[in-house]
Structures are given as C-alpha cells and as structure tokens.
C-alpha cells in the first residue's frame, strides 16, 4: 500500500533520514521504533509532504507521491496525527473536527462522521464548544486522533501518540490505535515506547541515526536479543 524506497531527508545540514526503505501493506499495523532523533518523525513528515525528500521515492497504492504537497497527500487517503498533538488551540472542539474533514466536501457525510466521533469520544462531546487549548493533554490527544479520522483515511500515521500523557490515557490511546486498525484502517505508528509498540503491531522497523537497522514481525523483534537489551529493558 505504502512503499518508501531509499528516501533521504535533510534537516538543515544534518541527514535526518538516510536511505530508508519500508513498506506498509493494506490492513497492517506497522510501527517505527527507535530512540529520540532516530529519524522516525522525519520519515512521517516526509510521507506527508511536510519535509522535502532529497532522494528516493514514495509510492502509495502504486502512485508516486514523493514530494507531493500535504493537501494532496490527505486527498490520497493518508492522515497524519502529528507529534505533540498539534490541535488548533484557539478553535473549539467542533471546529477542530471540522478542520479534520477540510479536504472533503460531502457535507452530510461529514456531519455523520462528526456525530459518530462524538459518540466514540464522549469527553469531546462534553467539551464541544470549548477551545481545544483548554482541554487536558489526554483529551487533546483524543481530539488529534479524531481529527485525523475525520478525513476518512485509508492509512493513518500516528506520531508518538502516548508522549506526555498520564498512564491511564496512554493505555486508552493504544487501545484506540488497535481499534482503528480492527476497523479496517491501515496504521503506521511512530513510538518510543518499544514495548507497547511491539505488543500492538504486526511488523516493526527499528531506526537508528536515520537508518533502518532492523526489521521484522513483532514477535521477531521482541525476541531479538539486541532489541531486548537496548529497548525492552533486558
């Protein structure tokens, strides 16, 4: 479904992503793990068109999307739930959700999806008229996820969805990503918490300093002695 072939991304003078190749098949749950600064977020940003790809190609459902503008990427069916939530803090919850459906023009469909999103996230319904900036971190993450889903994506990318959240919300967010995949949406998730990531996903890639150094099924990765030592605490 999504295929990255040897892509390189520069961040100023440094190489953030160095010839990364990876693949996500339809219906899969794939994670990118690795420590801070390994190039995981930059990879997602390159797919979204937020960072220019210096070399290599990205294809989605067979179509080339390398260096496509972000507004076209979402029309292709790829949604991005960015690191740090990035909700529109001065817009209220409803407006944030409407912005999620910005690329769509089927008003009735948008209204239905908004309603079902509020059914799924009762906390958001309670705060529907509040500016998103007044929500708690966990609620903002729920909103960011709901916003990403409002575009009806076929592939959704989550960037560190658990970062900075209270433990009960972390659990909830991970359950949610699993539910989304169960609902038929393909998931590509960046996660520093390798333990949780490998519990959830089908396959995973380990990035170090911009390179893919290891890949495999979740089980293979969990059983790998290097990963156990460096990322799973022995």
């Amino acid at each position, binding site marked *: 479904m999504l295929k990255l072939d040897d892509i390189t991304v520069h961040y100023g003078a440094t190489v953030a992503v160095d010839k990364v190749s990876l693949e996500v098949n339809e219906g899969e749950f794939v994670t990118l793990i690795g420590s801070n600064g390994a190039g995981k977020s930059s990879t997602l940003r390159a797919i979204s068109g*937020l960072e220019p790809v210096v070399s290599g190609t990205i294809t989605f459902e067979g179509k080339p999307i390398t260096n496509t503008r972000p507004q076209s*990427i*979402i029309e292709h069916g790829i*949604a991005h739930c*960015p690191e740090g939530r*990035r909700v529109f803090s001065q817009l209220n919850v409803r407006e944030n959700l409407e*912005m999620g459906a910005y*690329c769509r023009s089927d008003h009735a469909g948008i209204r239905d999806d908004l309603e079902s999103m509020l059914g799924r996230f009762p906390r958001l319904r309670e705060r529907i008229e509040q500016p998103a*900036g*007044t929500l708690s971190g966990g609620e903002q993450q729920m909103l960011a996820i709901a916003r990403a889903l409002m575009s009806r994506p076929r592939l959704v990318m989550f960037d560190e969805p658990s970062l900075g959240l209270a433990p009960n919300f972390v659990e909830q967010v991970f359950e949610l990503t699993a539910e989304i995949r169960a609902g038929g949406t393909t998931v590509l998730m960046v996660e520093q918490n390798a333990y949780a990531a490998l519990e959830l996903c089908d396959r995973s890639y380990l990035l170090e300093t911009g390179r893919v150094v290891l890949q495999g099924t979740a089980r293979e990765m969990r059983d790998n002695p290097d990963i156990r030592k460096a990322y799973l605490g022995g």
Partner: protein
Amino acid sequence: MDQFLQHLVNGTVLGATYALLGIGLTLIFGIMKVVNFAHGELYAFGAYVAYALVSLLQMDYFVALVLAAGLGLLLGAAIEFLLLRRCRLENIDEVMLIMIGVMIIMQNAELLAWGGVAKVVPTPFPQESIIVGGIYLSPTRLFVLGAAIVLLLAFYLVIERSRLGLAMRATFQDEDAARIVGVNVSRIYTLTFGLGSSLAAITGALLAPVFVVTPTMGDLASLKAFAIVILGGLGNIRGAALGGFALALIEEFGAAYISTAYRDAIGFLVILVVMIARPQGLFAAKERVG
C-alpha cells in the same frame, strides 16, 4: 446634552471606519504576524481609486466603492504573492523592511501620479444635514456608518462562520497542522493579506468624500490602525472592532472637552496607558498557552 450626543454620533461614525481599518490590520498584523507598515497606504490607495473613478471618470460612487474593494484585494494579494511569499515571514526584520519599502513606493507613486495637492471626491448625497433632536446628521456620514457596519458584520461572519475563515484561523494558529489536514496554506496567506488590504481600501474610498485625499493620508491611518489593533488585543477581530470605536470616541470627546489641538495626542496617550496597564489589549480573551 445636545453637544454630548452630537460628539457621540460623530465618534460612532468615525469609530465604524476605524473598526474597519483595525480589523483589516488585525488580520495581517495580529493573525498573520506581518508588521504591515503599508496598511495606511492601502487606505490611501482606496481613496485615490475613488478620486480617479468618481472625480475624473465621472463614475458612479457606489460602483467606485466596489471597485476600490476589489482593486485593494488584488493589490494586497499581489504584495503578498510577489514580495512576502518567498521569505514566508521567517525573518521579521526582512518583512518589516519589505513593508516599509512598499509604503515608501506607494506613497511616492501617489505623489507622482496625482501631485501633492489635496483632492476632493464629490459625495452623491445631499449636502444638507438632517437634524434630529438637535443633532446634525450628514447623509454622507450616515451612509459611511451604515456601510461600515454592514462590512463589519459581513466580515465577522466570514471569519467566524465560513469554511475559509476557519481555515484562516487554523493556519495562523498552527501552519503544519493546517497543512496536514489539507489546507493550501500559501493560498490562505495570499487571501488573508488581500482581504485585510481590501478592507483598508474600501475604508479609504468610503471616507474620500468626507475628508480630502492626499498622498500622506496613509501615515496617520497606519499609526491609528496599529493603535487600534494593540488596543483590541493582537489578532482579536472583535477587539479590533471595539478598539476602533473606543479610539474614535476617546479622540472625539478628548477634542470636545479637553483640546481640539491635541485630538490625536489624546488617543495615543490612552494607547500608551493601555500598553502599560494591560499589554494584552483591552478586549483580549483569556487563553491557555501550551
């Protein structure tokens, strides 16, 4: 009492046009963060469009108003597209220099094209004032008030209720987040600058028959627009509207009861006090940061 009401009416008329100027600038300066020194020049541009069309080409005044708004939109969009797009507001010094350049070029172009002599734009309304309960109401000024209020409401609806307004607010809050939900951010920038400029231009055209048209009329307009935006709180649309009325009423009553000579000084003195006592602006909403 009659005097008081008369000043109140005059201040309100002036306030409506200040509000238009202020809202235009709060979009560009408050929301887009472009320190737009040329805002007053767009106002002068609108006044000269009215002069050229009405006084020179004998065109209908109302048609000229619409054209001034349209040309202001185009000119503003062109400034953003040609001059600001490349630096994308990353370097505030660069942006300020560009806008000062635009101001100087526009002001001198006006001087070159029309000369330094003040121009008069004839009003399509009767000259005699209507007298209601001892208060003199000039039909031209009443029209200015009515048109300004309609524009204020229309503009408020666009920003607060329309899809375009939503995309604008989203873009200037978090550009990357707006991109990933599919907003064409470049187009939003151009449109926002164009809309703000259009408001300045139509304000100039509206006021052209009330005051005279001169190449330097933009200077004071720019200064006042900045004062209004600061008074209302940066980027606050409602605040800019209220700030416009507030500044006009302060000026009007200050001139009436303190000193006519210090009319503008009184307004700016109040701005100074506001900046010291309430730097977030009089009407700024509470906001949680982070």
